[in-house]
């Protein structure tokens, strides 16, 4: 059970949860935001559109803040691979390290061109400057692929053989291009556009709600919302195809997601409900639909928890958590797809929903929903894999550090991350205020000796 674990394991898992859970949101901005900015920047210089260019410039300043926090919180994660899970790295470091190394290269490319892009305003010819976003976008794709390669490998380890308890015949390329990587990558890459699209649009929805109905706010809403729409419509398809593989790859996770206690043929779809003493309670069951969705068959069963080896079976609490997280994620995803599709449908019919307060409020909620769905999805994949760190090969308790004091480092980390979040929120808010009050887009630093010469251009 979650709280019965002893020693470093529980704080180590919590520390990983907090570090990953916060970094993943920032990582989304690193991957998708440059692409969204590119569209506006391109429109700005192609159509000589000052509003679009102004938005691109502001967003690049926001990106500077978010990327910095994302870069350093990502660094913490690479420390934690060893600080928290040294035995995992000792045994499997050379099996699964390759995608990490490639991710390092992608991050390098990203950091270099972000440096050039952020400081390139007024310094580079417009077309060259715009082109600097292209390598950033490509690096985002490669980086996402590499990180998801590692996570997919943890779900379905390949690329080595065990011989008398030792790892032999290591093939790092096979480990990287494991069978699950493509779908997991697609699922996450699409998710980055949902998070960034809905979150950015929500900022302008708030402005519109406060009566700032101008082209600046409309464009700032519509472009990211368009990205979010495409992503939100694609996501259920990608997610479903990914889920279909679970029966073969990770039966316990599927059992938890479907809250299948017994192996039933055909399996029902179980909506809601919790497990108490191994029994399903308070659930709505729709006959046959479970088999149809999870196995694409009218009668093939979902393996029940009771039919799994007892030492690999998730406890009631974990299974319930995975089940409810999964269903909340799906529900949010469907709602987001519906909301965004409805907006464009209404727009085609000539209705202006950007004047509808309910829609603007829903768009703000959509940003919260998108982030929530992202976190819930990671809960499903990570908690659903327990007790394994490398599925069927190494348990988390065998991977964790022997050091005491992880509670201390976890507590300090929470304090630092809270401060960082508050700091980022305050800075971003003040940036928005200063822009609104007519300060130059560059936002000079208060102590800057150049300040008095910075005039709005």
């Amino acid at each position, binding site marked *: 059970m979650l709280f019965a674990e002893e020693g470093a394991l529980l704080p180590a898992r919590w520390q990983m949860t907090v570090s990953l859970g916060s970094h993943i949101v920032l990582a989304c901005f690193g991957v998708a935001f440059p692409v969204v900015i590119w569209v506006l920047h391109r429109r700005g210089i192609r159509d000589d559109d000052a509003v679009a260019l102004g938005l691109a410039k502001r967003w690049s300043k926001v990106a500077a803040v978010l990327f910095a926090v994302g870069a350093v919180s990502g660094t913490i994660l690479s420390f934690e*691979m060893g600080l928290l899970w040294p035995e995992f790295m000792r*045994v499997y470091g050379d099996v699964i*390290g390759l995608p990490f190394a490639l991710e390092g290269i992608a991050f390098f490319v990203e950091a270099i061109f972000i440096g050039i892009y952020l400081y390139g305003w*007024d310094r580079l010819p417009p077309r060259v400057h715009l082109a600097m976003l292209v390598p950033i976008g490509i690096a985002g794709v490669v980086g996402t692929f590499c990180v998801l390669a590692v996570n997919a490998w943890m779900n379905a380890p390949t690329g080595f053989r065990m011989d008398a308890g030792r790892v032999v015949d290591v093939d790092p390329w096979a480990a990287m291009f494991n069978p699950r990587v493509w779908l997991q990558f697609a699922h996450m890459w699409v998710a980055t556009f949902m998070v960034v699209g809905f979150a950015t649009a929500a900022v302008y929805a708030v402005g519109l709600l406060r009566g700032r109905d101008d082209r600046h706010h409309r464009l700032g809403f519509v472009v990211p919302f368009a990205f979010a729409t495409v992503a939100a419509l694609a996501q259920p398809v990608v997610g479903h195809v990914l889920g279909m593989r679970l029966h073969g790859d990770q039966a316990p996770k599927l059992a938890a997601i479907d809250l299948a206690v017994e192996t039933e043929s055909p399996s029902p779809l179980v909506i809601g409900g919790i497990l108490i003493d191994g029994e399903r309670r308070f659930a709505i069951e729709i006959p046959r639909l479970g088999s149809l969705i999870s196995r694409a068959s009218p009668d093939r069963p979902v393996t029940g928890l009771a039919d799994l080896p007892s030492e690999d079976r998730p406890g009631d609490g974990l299974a319930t958590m995975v089940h409810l997280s999964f269903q909340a994620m799906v529900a949010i995803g469907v709602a987001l797809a519906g909301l965004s599709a409805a907006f464009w449908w209404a727009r085609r019919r000539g209705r202006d929903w950007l004047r509808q307060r309910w829609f603007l409020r829903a768009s703000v909620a959509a940003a919260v929903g998108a982030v929530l769905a992202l976190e819930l999805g990671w809960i499903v994949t990570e908690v659903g894999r327990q007790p394994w760190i490398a599925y069927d090969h190494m348990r988390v308790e065998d991977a964790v550090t022997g050091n005491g004091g992880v509670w201390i480092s976890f507590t300090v980390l929470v304090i630092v991350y809270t401060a960082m979040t508050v700091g980022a929120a305050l800075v971003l808010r003040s940036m928005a205020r200063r822009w609104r009050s007519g300060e130059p887009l560059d936002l000079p630093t208060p102590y800057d000796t150049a300040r008095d010469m910075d005039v709005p251009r």
Partner: protein
Amino acid sequence: MSLAELVATLLFAGVLAYALFAGADFGSGVWDLTAGDAERGAPLRSLIDRVIGPVWEANHVWLIYVLVFLWTGFPSVFASVMETLYIPFSLAGLGIVARGSAFAFRKFAPTIATARLFGALFALSSVVTPFLLGCIVGAIASGRVPADGQGDVWTSLTGPTSLVGGTLAVLTCAFVAATFLAAEADQRDLPELAAGCRRRALWTGGLVGVAALVGIVPLADDAPTLFDGLTGKALPLVVGSAVAGTTALWALWRRRYRDARPAAVVAVGMVVSGWAVGQHPWILADTLTIEAAAGARATLWALVIVFVVAGALVLPALGYLFWLTQRPGWVAAERHRRPRTSRRRPR
């Protein structure tokens, strides 16, 4: 050279790059801390913002490069280092977070008070983080990290070699940064600022020399392997470093800032290389050799390929970034929106 040694060399190239480039960034933070109050320190802080702003994230990635190459090529070394050096690594990680985010936040701080808060955080963590990283090097070089990873978590931080490593790291960062900043100020036509940085570079440079001479004494007892290496096969590097360091100081004295820069880089590069050559063939001094620590051969080859890819993609891009920031047009874009500080500053 065996495959394992080749990969260890590629790994070390990353350590070297991180020490030089991120070292200069850290050192800028040291000078930011000591620049004086909000008004007096403003010109130097503005210069630091401009100089490290475009490059600090890229410079920082060298650390990621080192970590991933280490855990992929030498997984047991990574695991052991992280287990024994849990405390300095945890603190350095937090220092990196505080530093990077505070630097980004300060640039967009709305008021002088918030800028001061973020600035203090940035500058303070710029001193603490390199100190801890230096301690980590000292702990590895003095054989405090056992091959199985369960070393003493405290003495790794408090051992004489660790303290020497930490002190030298901070001083070296400060020296390199002051030299770089002097050249950047000169390039931007800010003679007063350049003179101030020159003064700082001169006395920290002297201090680095003294610290290196004094610091080597405790190594004889505490890190005999490294000591023998530094006074034996790595001696040419040590001497070379001293020559280059003296050259840098001479160039600074003569106000030839552009010449001082490469000399300082060579001096630091040689002393860091001296550490690697000095403790060769150990990857963890006295406890684990490069050969014994190496991971699967197929993975080592993959890392060589990654390095070649990185060389083809990253190095030209990095060169482009550095070239851009050194181009007259880049600096001129700052100048046309900035008054000449020297003229404006009341004395």
